[in-house]
């Protein structure tokens, strides 16, 4: 009955995917995502200033290193830019990078995993060897080199992250497909005359989609972390604000030694929160996918 037990919770939700309600970690993770998503969506209204605008007071003095207060929630940088606005706009950029990379990773990984696992033989061998190669590439150097060659644009960071992260998803999906493929209802679909593609996408795929979502949610965190790293190292897009850019800016201006913690602590916390949220959600999915893990 072990198999049935695995299948049941997902089936109980019918064909929709019920998000994990019970697991408190998953709930926390989801809440974090939702908050950041809302911030990103309404970033224009939440931000109090243009994040790149250099601010002066009425007397024409540069508003540099202003401490947090009513006018500037998190103060200003040493070049007189509003930190809170940077953080808010950075959220939008972070989420754009994270979500678009996650979508590419999840769909590419799922497709490759499905095809490799379902068709097996040389298709499987070929795709999995390609995945091995991709897994062998050192992560950050590859992203940096790619950004250096193709230009430091947000889209290139997304592409780089996607190229490196899909194999993890593909491997897990493939192993799940190998299990699902052997279930009797798949053979039943064959006997009733379903075409190969129909079996693949109508019968097999819905049974592995929870894993797709799981790996997608982890990829969000990874992509944001990567973007931050690249920006922090100074290879990020120069035209837009991101959390990594803020950290780099703060580092370059010796914010630490000046004690302007309000400058670099908030973006650091944001990065941690997003990455942790991804893992919390994956924990919730784990409960659904492998309920036996926790007895």
């Amino acid at each position, binding site marked *: *009955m072990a*198999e*049935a037990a695995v*299948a*049941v919770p*997902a*089936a*109980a939700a*019918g*064909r929709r995917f019920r998000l994990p309600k019970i697991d408190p970690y998953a709930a926390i993770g989801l809440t974090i995502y939702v908050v950041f998503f809302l911030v990103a969506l309404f970033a224009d209204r939440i931000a109090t200033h243009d994040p790149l605008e250099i601010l002066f007071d009425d007397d024409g003095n540069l508003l540099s290193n202003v401490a947090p207060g009513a006018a500037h929630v998190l103060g200003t940088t040493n070049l007189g830019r509003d930190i809170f606005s940077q953080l808010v706009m950075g959220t939008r950029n972070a989420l754009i990078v994270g979500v678009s990379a996650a979508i590419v990773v999840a769909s590419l990984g799922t497709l490759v995993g499905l095809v490799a696992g379902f068709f097996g033989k040389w298709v499987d061998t070929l795709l999995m060897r390609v995945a091995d190669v991709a897994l062998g590439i050192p992560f950050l150097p590859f992203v940096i080199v790619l950004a250096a060659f193709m230009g430091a644009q947000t889209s290139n960071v997304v592409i780089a992250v996607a190229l490196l992260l899909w194999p993890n998803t593909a491997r897990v999906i493939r192993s799940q497909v190998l299990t699902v493929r052997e*279930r*009797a*209802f798949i*053979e*039943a*679909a*064959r*006997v*009733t*005359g*379903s*075409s190969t593609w*129909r079996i693949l996408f109508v*019968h097999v795929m*819905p*049974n592995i989609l929870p894993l797709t979502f799981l790996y997608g949610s982890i990829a969000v965190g990874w992509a944001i972390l990567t973007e931050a790293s690249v920006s922090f190292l100074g290879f990020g897009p120069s035209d837009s604000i991101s959390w990594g850019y803020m950290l780099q800016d703060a580092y370059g201006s010796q914010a630490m030694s000046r004690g302007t913690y309000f400058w670099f602590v908030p973006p650091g916390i944001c990065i941690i929160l997003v990455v942790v949220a991804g893992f919390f959600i994956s924990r919730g999915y784990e409960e659904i996918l492998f309920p036996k893990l926790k007895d």
Partner: protein
Amino acid sequence: MASLLDVRGLTKHFPVSRTLREVARGERPVVRAVEDVTFAMDQGESVGILGESGCGKTTTGRLLLKLVEASEGTITLDGYDVRALKGPDLKRFRRHAQLVFQNPFDALNPRFTLRRSIAEPLLNAGVPKGEWDDRIAAVLKRVHLSGVSDLMEKFPHQLSGGQLQRVVLARALILEPTFIVADEPVSMLDVSVRAGILNVMREVRETMGLTAIYISHDLALVRYVAPRTIVMYLGKIVEDGPTDAVISRPLHPYARALVAAVPVPRVDQDRGALPITGMIPDARNPPSGCRFRDRCPYAVARCAEEVPALRELAPGHRAACHLL
């Protein structure tokens, strides 16, 4: 009357992973799952294939339905050469030949409602949607499920094993097939509901004039649904005859042991030793000659040298043994 199903020399070898030495020597070891199986079935006949696990009975059933590709031999069903079927012909074949699964808990997609599972064959066969409700209602009546309200909107995990197996049967019957293979249809079910499923299967076979193969390890069950029995051992047919004759006068030594081993729910019964020794040998290296010889109490030298042919020893009763 011409046979509906004609199977000749059906053989299936599964490749197995090789050891380093076998790779070096260029050997390709195989599991001889099914070897030279030959039999025919008339329209409307029902046959039980009996044997222990690993005897090739399940593979034979899969081969007949073209779910596994045969290595050698021919399968002719209703004039079609089953092994050569492709494209639209294969699709037509799938309407006529169906399978009933062993494990009803696994045979239905857990994410589909029962209606969707049962309608799947209709969709694949291109039956107009307008006819679906009538067809579903009719088939549910056949399997005695029509009285249960809003059953069709439920998911598999909400049903009992007996109900699920009826749904599986309904899905197999909805396109009105002519040929059906039932692979251990009740072995996963509780005793008290088994009889219900078997009765339904018997009933639909008669009313629909189905030709059916029941694959089972249980002789009592085979006797209940099939007047003819084929006994398999290590991929080969060792005996083929009327079920009653196989039970009362089994010819092949293996069939004798098998019949003697069948448990009966009675206190007074023979508890003597079985006329069989040892255990089933490795299917990668079956014994030469007769595959049963190393366990057979009557084996002679000839059994090791020559593969016994399946001979007709009484009307409609064949067995493969040199000593008969």
